[in-house]
């Protein structure tokens, strides 16, 4: 009797603690974002003098409207959406297909190929040869230069492979006994129950393609191809201390105001933030494994 009363109590404390920790972390993580959001809705003078905390001061929509109306912003936005959508679809497809055979470690040669992949996580040829490769493939000033070299991210490949390995072998065994080919097993059994890992790597690829500014900076010279994150980075770094020291005064006189900088951050971050909530329904525990088994 006593025993059964005690257990729920300790459990209640545990669950209570879990909620406190999660709410606490939530508040800590929300603060900076709210600050940037508040700044994007505040007047420039209030930002400069540090008056803006979590709520806008001297509220204005002007900054956000200015950014949304800017043709360069609109263009960069469309480029980013295109690269992210096409890139993520292609990369998920390539990764999912390439990872499946790698999960069959007992097959001859597979471990070697796996090591070939892992080697590239740590070693790469560096900036100059990679640049020359892209140039020789005639991908300069071409959006494919952002997508093709990123079709397989080895980390995501390993995640995928890891997930395939964790699937109960009985699933595939029984299908094999029914005479199904490997490919058929992948398409009709493995992929349908892999929603959580597909959701995860889709998210990772989408965030990668959206956030990538480094390769656009290297491979694109035509300003009309500039994606959003490069556009954003240029604007943010304009006001960095290092730049303030090095730039000539004419550039400094043309600096965009703080409010506009913050508004640019907000409007170029929100689209990618929406991807996770959209994918969250696939993170629900065992939803699909259960259904296949049942």
């Amino acid at each position: 009797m006593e025993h059964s009363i005690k257990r729920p109590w300790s459990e209640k404390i545990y669950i209570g603690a879990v909620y406190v920790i999660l709410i606490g972390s939530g508040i800590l993580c929300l603060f900076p974002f709210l600050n940037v959001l508040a700044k994007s809705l505040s007047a420039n003078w209030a930002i400069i003098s540090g008056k803006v905390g979590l709520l806008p001061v001297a509220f204005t929509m002007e900054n956000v409207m200015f950014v949304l109306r800017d043709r360069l912003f609109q263009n960069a936005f469309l480029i980013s959406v295109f690269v992210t959508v096409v890139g993520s679809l292609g990369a998920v497809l390539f990764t999912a297909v390439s990872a499946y055979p790698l999960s069959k470690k007992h097959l001859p040669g597979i471990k070697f190929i796996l090591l070939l992949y892992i080697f590239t996580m740590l070693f790469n040829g560096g900036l100059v040869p990679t640049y020359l490769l892209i140039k020789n493939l005639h991908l300069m000033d071409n959006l494919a230069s952002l997508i093709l070299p990123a079709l397989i991210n080895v980390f995501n490949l390993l995640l995928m492979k890891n997930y395939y390995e964790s699937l109960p072998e009985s699933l595939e065994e029984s299908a094999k006994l029914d005479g199904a080919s490997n490919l058929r097993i992948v398409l009709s059994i493995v992929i349908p129950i892999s929603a959580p890992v597909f959701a995860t790597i889709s998210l990772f690829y989408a965030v990668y393609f959206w956030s990538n500014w480094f390769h656009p900076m290297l491979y694109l010279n035509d300003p009309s191809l500039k994606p959003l994150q490069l556009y954003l980075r240029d604007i943010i770094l304009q006001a960095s201390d290092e730049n303030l020291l090095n730039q000539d005064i004419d550039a400094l006189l043309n600096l965009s105001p703080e409010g506009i900088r913050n508004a640019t951050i907000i409007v170029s971050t929100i689209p990618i933030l929406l991807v996770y909530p959209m994918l969250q329904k696939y993170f629900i525990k065992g939803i699909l494994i259960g259904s296949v088994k049942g």
Partner: protein
Amino acid sequence: MKGRIQWTSQVRRNYDLYLLLIPGLVFLAIFKYTPIYGLVIAFQEFNIFKGIGGSEWVGFKQFERLFSSDDFGRVMTNTLLISLYKIVILFPIPIALAIFLNEVGKMWFKRTVQTIIYLPHFLSWVIIAGLFVNIMSPSNGIVNNMIEFFGGEPINFFMDNDYFRSVIVATAGWKEAGWNAIIFIAAIAGLDPELYEASKLDGASRIQQIFTITLPGIASTIVLMFILRIGHVLEAGTEQILLLYNPTVYETGDVIGTYIYRMGLTSMEYSFSTAVGLFESVIGFFLVIGGNWMAKRVTGKSIW
């Protein structure tokens, strides 16, 4: 003879699986292994206008340049310390977050928290650094106001060598914990709910379930993440530290990445930066191989 027959019959029976490898191998060959010849410039005095063929070979000179600099000892120590703190302290946090989120029954709450804790990942250090300097300022930052409220002395976190590494670890954890939790959330989502049902019937408490079901269930993901993490032990967070440090805390905060940046060795010093990268890669490669071997022995799980 028998082994050989098995080998070929294995390949023949699964030829379609081998064909699936082709796109990936083509990708590797073109985009990863074609440029790898560039590593040799670590042993040159590379002049971009002359190319690899025309540049002078200098052996290990670039490596010597790195190892023989006065500050190398200090910089290496800082790198390893900060990196180790980050691994020891920060690696478990996302796992804990994922487990806690798994305990939450209310779907809206779970989703909201998940979405909120991954927000900081999307703000770059340039923006966040400024915010931290403000909230931790000894004169009017909120953190020090609280310390003073509880009767403490204000701490100048960003100028105090006793605190600086802790600040680096804490801010990095704050920024990436929620994002890193996603992998574990997904791994837990892949577990079979029947396992939980069964153990509930056996009378296991929720805390017991963590150790008997959840952790073993995501162990292979944990092992994977851990091995890959230690491969990057020499990258202690260059961008973060560059934006948060200042000369008064070089003693504890200066790492390899920040040091070579400050010495102007990242711009156009192609040979030197390749050498540093190669050094980091070789160390990382051995750690990954060693980590995989250890993991296989201890947990029975491994990447390959």
